[in-house]
């Protein structure tokens, strides 16, 4: 029995000691979007495609960063509370059970910004502050 508890404590300590990458990300939308802030939970639902419409009824177009990028890992950890690979596994399950597809992926901050500029209903995130016309940063509560 003692051995059981030792093994249990070992695995528990492994779990709580997992390192979380503390990276920065900035959530951006087209400047035509009337929102100025968004709840973290709502943002998670948008990226998990559990919420598909903005409050004005327009279709949300979430755009993700490339797989393996540090900004995507930070976003996943802080918004979803899971690693990017866990989120990837979630989408694998959704895709291959025929229940949906993940958000569109773009390869860099520049590509995400270009997509946001071109699509008034899009939402994305980038690794550094943005000061571009037609794009604004949303505060995440």
């Amino acid at each position, binding site marked *: 029995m003692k051995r059981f508890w030792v093994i249990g404590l070992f695995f528990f300590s492994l*779990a709580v000691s*997992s390192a979380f990458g503390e990276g920065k990300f900035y959530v951006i939308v087209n400047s035509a979007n009337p929102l100025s802030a968004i709840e973290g939970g709502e943002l998670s639902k948008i990226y998990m495609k559990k919420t598909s419409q903005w409050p004005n009824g327009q279709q949300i177009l979430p755009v993700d960063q490339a*797989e393996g990028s540090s900004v995507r890992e930070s976003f996943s950890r802080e918004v979803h509370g*899971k690693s990017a690979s866990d989120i*990837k596994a979630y989408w*694998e*399950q959704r895709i291959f059970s025929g229940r949906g597809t993940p958000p569109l992926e773009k390869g860099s901050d520049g590509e995400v910004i270009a997509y946001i500029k071109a*699509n008034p209903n*899009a939402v994305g995130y980038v690794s550094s502050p943005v000061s571009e016309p037609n794009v604004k940063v949303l505060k995440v509560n």
Partner: protein
Amino acid sequence: MIRHTRSESIGVKTGWIPCHLVNKAVSVGLIIFNLLIVLSAAPAVAADIDLGGESKLTIHGFLSQAYANAAGGIYLGIPQDGTTDYRNTALQFRYEYSSKDAFVIQFSEQRLGESPVQAQGFLGDVQLNWVFYERRLFDNTTIKVGKFPIPLGIYNEVLHVGTVLPFFRPPFGFYGDGSYTSETINGVGLYQALQMGESWGLEADLYAGGFTFIQLGLDQNFQLAAFPTEANDVLGGALWLYTPIEGLRIGAGGYRSTDQNEPFPFPPDHKITHTDWWASLDARLDRFLLQAEYRWEREGNFWTYKDYYILGGVKLTKELAVHAAAEFADMEYPGFASNIKATKDYTLGARYAFRPNLIAKGEYHLQKGYMQDDPIPDYLADPVKVNYYIVSLAVSF
């Protein structure tokens, strides 16, 4: 759908929902579906949106290729001298032609080594795996019609997708593979997700229709044969409760069907009612995986099958995880004084993720029971012990 057919007597139909009511339910479901399509057609056109200039067609696929080797007999098509003719692959096309409408088609190929199901041509080459039209009625409500995956337990909808499975396949006694199972149903399905407060959620599926599955049994010449059995008037559902503990969900569901064309001793036109219930616990925590499922099936008054398993895993590093599972299945047959221990399977495996969609796995199974596929087991004899291992590589995109 595990159905074991070593039979001694023919049961009496004791379905808990009379067939005519199920037929009626299916018809009503189809009528409601048609009405919804008609009623929502105009808004669909109006709501059609620009998807940001991106393609509305997405293509996904997976391949899980294995080498498998058994000791003690052929089990799940795995021979004693090993086989590389062991594979699952699929290619899926999804066309979302509006924000609410999608058309999905998936082709697949499965190879099961020396399984009699494969030898008799039932797995074929590339087959139409799914084809369905899906309509999003509201934000979290969808309806689909066509041939689509059956929501049953944790894994039935992703039965062969190696990149999401801890082992090469989900626990065999619960899910089956090749025979005694159907991944899909021809019919109509309704899905609803509900958010309950800040941290609870519910997902519900209802489905109706029919499917065909393969059974192994004796033909009129008492030779081993594979029988394509029809499950008609299927009516079923699944519920998943998402808890405030991130990654923990609890599920339950079931279905009933009227089965026809079963092996000896059933005559070809004999119909029998099948009922099936399951319950699941699925915990996918940051480093740990814990899953447990229970399934109960009954074929008329004839046989009862019970299966349960527990599966655990821990991520040792970001790439490497180890998993262990124990599965037990019992059958009750008329004429047998005690339950038949259909299978006991203890599994230990390791999974290495080069990337989330490129995964190598190795697993070893200690199996004892009566579920080997060739020859047909003799329940009066001692259970057969077959140990086997599978080494596989899974990739998806």
